[in-house]
């Protein structure tokens, strides 16, 4: 269809007046130029990050990634505390969020796909995604932190209030919509003959969900979780406000979870404008480069799985 239309346009073009022809060519070129611009932006982002982090890549090498000390004053840079902080906050958030996003996907995809109640819940989920992260951070700082502090006092760990756990809780709420809304769409795509066949064999609703819907949508739901993870890794403001911003490596697992920490994004947000010499700045940019690669790869894998799923 597309080829044919184009040939048709090509023939027609001969008969068009000169000025129209000129405009048409200009219009096509603009469309092409804007698409090229996108590629240029991405290449530019990549080039800028690589070039600007060169001083640090050269002087620190690959050891940067597992250097345990981050001390700009003595000019020692190691990314390990931030890698751990980022992975820890993201994975705790993911573990908390998955039951919720799966439950929402199953409820709105299978149990209650239509009606006012389903609309209401769906809007609520979209609203969760719409609230800016700075507002979650602000709220967390004044409401969640005191609650966590009391909780920490009860269980007998140092009552910081702020820290990895607090950030993970807020992150979990923020990333639920991404996996949930994709899950809803995917679960609704399960062909009804499959489900009806299972019901016809006498399966209960739970059995249909477990043995028909879940296997059918597994890869897609996983892709949704990956997209959530991509969000969590790159989330900056709420985490920066709640994590406590300590670049020291925690001495025990308990302190790593309940105590303050730092993520790649939060250390960049905090220290970028203070970085007063080249190596310091470029170490921060190298963190940005790592963050860029990790989130981009996770997102692309997620997107690829979804494309394959929806095309089948």
């Amino acid at each position, binding site marked *: 269809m597309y080829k044919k239309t184009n040939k048709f346009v090509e023939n027609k073009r001969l008969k068009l007046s000169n000025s129209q022809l000129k405009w*048409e060519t200009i219009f096509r070129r603009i469309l092409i130029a804007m698409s090229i611009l996108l590629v240029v932006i991405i290449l530019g982002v990549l080039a800028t990050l690589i070039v600007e982090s060169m001083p640090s890549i050269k002087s620190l090498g690959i050891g940067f990634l597992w250097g345990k000390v981050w001390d700009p004053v003595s000019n020692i840079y190691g990314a390990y505390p931030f890698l751990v902080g980022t992975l820890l906050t993201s994975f705790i958030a993911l573990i908390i969020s998955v039951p*919720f996003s799966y439950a929402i996907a199953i409820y709105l995809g299978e149990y209650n796909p239509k009606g006012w109640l389903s609309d209401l819940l769906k809007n609520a989920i979209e609203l969760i995604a*719409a609230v800016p992260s700075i507002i979650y*951070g602000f709220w967390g700082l004044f409401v969640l932190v005191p609650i966590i502090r009391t909780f920490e006092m009860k269980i007998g760990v140092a009552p910081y209030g702020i820290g990895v756990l607090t950030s993970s809780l807020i992150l979990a709420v923020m990333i639920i919509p991404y996996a949930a809304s994709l899950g809803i769409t995917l679960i609704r795509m399960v062909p009804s003959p499959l489900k009806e066949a299972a019901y016809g064999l006498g399966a*209960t609703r739970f059995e249909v969900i477990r043995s028909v819907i879940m296997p059918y949508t597994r890869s897609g739901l996983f892709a949704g979780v990956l997209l959530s993870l991509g969000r969590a890794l790159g989330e900056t403001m709420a985490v920066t406000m709640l994590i406590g911003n300590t670049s020291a490596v925690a001495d025990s697992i308990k302190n790593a979870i309940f105590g303050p920490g730092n993520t790649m994004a939060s250390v960049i947000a905090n220290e970028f404008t203070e970085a007063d010499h080249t190596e310091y700045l470029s170490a921060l940019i190298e963190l940005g480069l790592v963050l860029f690669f990790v989130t981009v790869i996770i997102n692309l894998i997620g997107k690829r799985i979804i494309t394959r799923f929806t095309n089948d």
Partner: protein
Amino acid sequence: MELNIGLRNTKSAIFKGIIVFFAFLITVPLIVVLGYIIKQGIFQVNWHFLTSVPAPVGETGGGIINALVGSFIMVMVAAVVAIPVGMAAGIYLSENPRSKLAYYSGLCVDILQGVPSIVVGIVVYFWIVKPLGTFSALSGSAALAIMMLPIVIRSTEQTLKMLPDSLKEAALSLGVPYHRVILKVIVPCGFAGILSGIMLSIARVIGETAPLLFTAFGNPYLSYSLTKPMESLPHLIFTYATSPYDDWHNLAWGASFILLMFVLVLNIFTKVLTRKWKVQL
């Protein structure tokens, strides 16, 4: 299936109970957060609050006019750049879905969607702030425009792809030149979808703080100049929320309330638009 039917039904009912419980539990944090922001913020808002600049430490009162103006200017400039570029790229992607360029720029849209906003801030810092030698509203707008692009492109592309080919063919058969077919037939037909994408992208970037930290930076005074640092609502909230003064916290609560209202109104508007025109995003 060795279990008796009564047990299996019970299991099914328990499972449903768990699902419903978790599905609705998520509304609790939403209601709590929204309720708290509204409770703390709504009494801060008055005419003085909306029309004056923040007061220095120790003085009561003060407002957020610098942030309101700043956010408005920066988002508008970003939109003026991102909307035409995004629409053009979106039109290209929907018109030439199989071309090589479409594959690569489609890939770039996917990548751009996943780039953490703080990384956009870093990059724009080196593109605009460093060459100009100063933090500026212009660089803030550039960062926001980059954040807006993928949403505008995807919504344009998806809306236009849903339009029937016969529309375009009918116009072409009448001898209408290609650019007029696109601009006068195809784009107007998909207008609601594109507009809701634009609204969504504005709602998204108006609350973005991270890309503004190293670009627009913030400014305690009212500024209209694109080449000077400029305050924005989310950045003002960040600075004042993390300060140790109660007066400043109150200012930040008020600003949060205003920001939340903006986002809510934009989202509701998008919702109404998509429902009325039956477009899907």
